[in-house]
């Protein structure tokens, strides 16, 4: 990472954490919505800094552009007059802040106590157990810095093609088929071909089925939300 990226990281890390805490602390719904916009936008920048360009752009488009607009509409439709601020008592605030600090300490100390980037032998064995034989292809992290071009690979993985994992697979030379040019003499013993399917590496799994499930799920959600939010006509009885 260059120094500009490090400065950007700390700036947007501070914006993310400050926005999240402001969402928690603020009592006004409109201010909470604005802080949420700030938080999610800064998280998108963090995604871009991590080399996930497509996910960062999707976060900006879908989350900040879609979901948050929906929430702001909800705020506008429900926060009329006295309902803009529904206060909770100060004792509740102090108690929840205390619990939050303790909880944050537990979670953060647990997560940061693991040495994730360890590349010694033990960790290598562990990652090979966890990720199969493909761990060698992505050694040293998937995305080296300044690469970040993930759009085509993401799209292909939704079609169940994984060029990011399968392209570097080395086929063992024993299983490579030798063209059998010798004429087959009737009566001669048949040469045993090596089992090709046993020693060839398997291709990685893609995400075609979850993609279809999510699309059907979105359709169901569309119908369900329209059904729930429709205006009920009062029937005179």
């Amino acid at each position, binding site marked *: 990472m260059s120094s500009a990226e490090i400065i950007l*990281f700390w700036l947007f890390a501070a914006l993310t954490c400050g926005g999240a805490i402001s969402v928690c602390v603020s009592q006004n719904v409109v201010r909470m919505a604005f802080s949420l916009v700030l938080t999610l936008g800064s998280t998108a920048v963090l995604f871009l800094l991590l080399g996930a360009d497509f996910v960062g752009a999707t976060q900006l488009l879908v989350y900040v552009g879609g979901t948050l607009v929906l929430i702001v509409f909800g705020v506008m439709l429900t926060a009329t007059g006295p309902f803009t601020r529904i206060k909770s008592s100060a004792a509740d605030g102090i108690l929840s802040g205390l619990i939050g600090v303790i909880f944050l300490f537990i979670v*953060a100390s647990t997560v940061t106590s693991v040495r994730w980037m360890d590349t010694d032998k033990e960790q290598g064995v562990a990652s090979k157990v966890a990720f199969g034989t493909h761990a060698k292809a992505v050694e040293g992290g998937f995305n080296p810095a300044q690469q970040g071009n993930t759009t085509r690979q993401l799209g292909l993985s939704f079609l169940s093609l994984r060029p990011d*994992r399968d392209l570097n697979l080395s086929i063992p030379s024993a299983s490579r088929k030798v063209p059998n040019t010798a004429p087959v003499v009737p009566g001669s013993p048949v040469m045993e071909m090596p089992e090709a399917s046993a020693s060839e590496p398997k291709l990685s799994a893609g995400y075609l089925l979850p993609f279809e499930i999510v699309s059907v799920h979105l359709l169901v959600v569309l119908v369900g939300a329209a059904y729930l939010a429709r205006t009920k006509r009062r029937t005179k009885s």
Partner: protein
Amino acid sequence: MQAIGPNPFLFIGAVLFVCGVICMTTKRNGIGVLMGVELVLNGANLNFITFSRFTPLGLDGQVFSLFVIVLAAAEAAVALAIALNFYNNHLTIDVDRGDELHG
């Protein structure tokens, strides 16, 4: 300057998660509870992207974060429809007033 490892990103994810949980549990406004859910999902997303960058998880983390984004959008739509229905019936959005189901 040395490069930034995964730990600062994981710490930000932890902050987002804890803030979301506190927001979900303490807000009396229904929309505020929704915002807490969004914060928690973003913390999980940040962890996914961090591990996809720094561990052999690879592209799978980014695919899963895309699924999380889509499901969060669907959840927000349905939950907002329920909140609007609640507001139409009760003329308030205070979640403490939704106590008609107690036994």
